[in-house]
């Protein structure tokens, strides 16, 4: 109860410091919005006019700024300043952050066989249950097991990255930088060991 009273006093402090025409400044409006305490609009706000003009001013500023640079670009000038913030996606992909989780791959040993020792940690931790490993005995007694088949269903994967975190051998990674994994059928979303190692 006391807390609410304190907030009210704080709010009134904001409302007292008004901008031109008795309008709230934008920062004040944001604060007022956060505290979800509505009040009656004053006369100028009721006419919508100041907000209308400030809105048109903002959008026209963007319009003329961008148009100027679009026209300059037509003549090959000032290409260093962009007229639009968008990326023309298929031709011009966005740069990816290095820690972004993208499609999985199985890392290899020096002889080209998978590093995976079929410990089943990733299969156990996977929240979407999309990994299915068939283990087999490795001829090298130091390694014990290897995955005869490693199935990863990308149609189910939620890209949580737990499988990468949990792997004791650094055998599975999500660093291929491949995001376009769209396919025409569910079956082709299921990746086997070969695809995970080579594609």
């Amino acid at each position: 109860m006391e807390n609410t009273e304190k907030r009210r006093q704080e709010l009134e402090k904001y409302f007292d410091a008004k901008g031109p025409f008795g309008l709230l400044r934008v920062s004040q409006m944001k604060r007022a919005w956060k505290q979800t305490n509505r009040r009656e609009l004053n006369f100028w706000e009721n006419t919508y006019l100041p907000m209308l003009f400030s809105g048109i001013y903002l959008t026209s500023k963007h319009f003329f700024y961008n148009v100027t640079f679009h026209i300059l670009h037509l003549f090959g000038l000032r290409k260093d300043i962009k007229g639009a913030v968008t990326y023309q996606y298929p031709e011009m992909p966005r740069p990816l952050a290095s820690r972004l989780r993208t499609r999985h791959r199985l890392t290899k040993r020096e002889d080209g066989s998978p590093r995976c020792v079929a410990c089943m940690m990733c299969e156990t931790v996977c929240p979407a249950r999309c990994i299915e490993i068939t283990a087999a005995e490795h001829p090298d007694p130091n390694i014990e097991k290897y995955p005869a088949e490693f199935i990863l269903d990308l149609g189910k994967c939620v890209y949580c990255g737990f499988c990468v975190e949990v792997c004791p051998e650094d055998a599975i990674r999500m660093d291929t930088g491949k995001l376009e994994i769209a396919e025409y059928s569910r079956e082709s979303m299921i990746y086997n060991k070969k695809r995970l190692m080579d594609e």
Partner: protein
Amino acid sequence: MSDILIKFILSAGTLFIMFNIAGLLTWVERKQSAVMQDRIGANRASILGFKAMGMFHALADVMKMLSKEEFIPEGANSFLFNLAPYLSVTFALVGFAAIPIGGELILNGHSIQLQAANLNIALIFIFAAMSMGVYGVVLAGFSSNNNYAFLGGMRGAAQMIAYEITMGAAIMGVIMVFNTLDLQALDVAQGAYMFGGWLPKWGVFVQPIAFFLFLTAATAETKRTPFDLPEGESEIIGYFVEYSGMKFGMFFLADLVETVLVAALMTTLFFGGWQVPYLHADGFYFPWGAHIAMTNLPVVILGVLSFFVKVAFFIWVLMAVRWTLPRFRYDQLMNLGWKILLPISLINIAVTAIVITLLG
């Protein structure tokens, strides 16, 4: 005979120009909104690798709409359902007949007014046409047998009534000042000057309040954001929810044609129509005494150019408003129309009348 031919050429030309401007507006709208929002906008449609800055998207849209299935919902009144889009487009287009796009052209001793229909009640004609346009909306909403379309139609009717009155009352001031209903005569009258010949006697300078009222009411008349309650794309989709194919396209076109019509009306009523500042029938007379003599033809061409430049500017303003403001809530819309705009417009009429009487 030649009179009829001239009329025919004039009306065909006006129709052709206005249709093309309206078609081009689909491109303008996409590009302007994109540039305002730091985007690039539609730029993929290409003919043989030639993209023309995305202008072919308008063509692609038309082709898509023409080849889509025309669907008439079960239980709809198919006659009214089919009639509605035609009403919308037709009444949006006939308004242009009475708008003067240029001054008096003298050709081989003939005097031609560059106005498709030389009506002495042009203003009333245009307002009648614009009011009839709402029948398209209402009929579409009522004949679709769909509750959402019905809601859209009702909102459309309520909004039109609220704003039509304001619009009519707003231009009363202009009519009183210039003392005519003939738009060509109105444009000629706006060629006078005030303050020792410096300020042209345009409607916006003698009736500034009427201009803002008219701008608001006319935006509401075009049914575009912030007054797009009949459409209400996010909640009821609007009176054309059941329309598909080119019939939907016609409603879309009617919106754009109305935008052009409103821009042309604002130019004609408040910004001197085809008047160029300081340009008289025989050349420029600047207020500091300079004079550039000109013959009739370049004067008329300058006038037509000035008309279209002004129209383009107002289209830009309407688009900027449309892509800046969010939609009004329904009660705010009605409050604005009935409680704010209408009283102001009535006061404006009274004050204008008093001032005119006092000035004699």
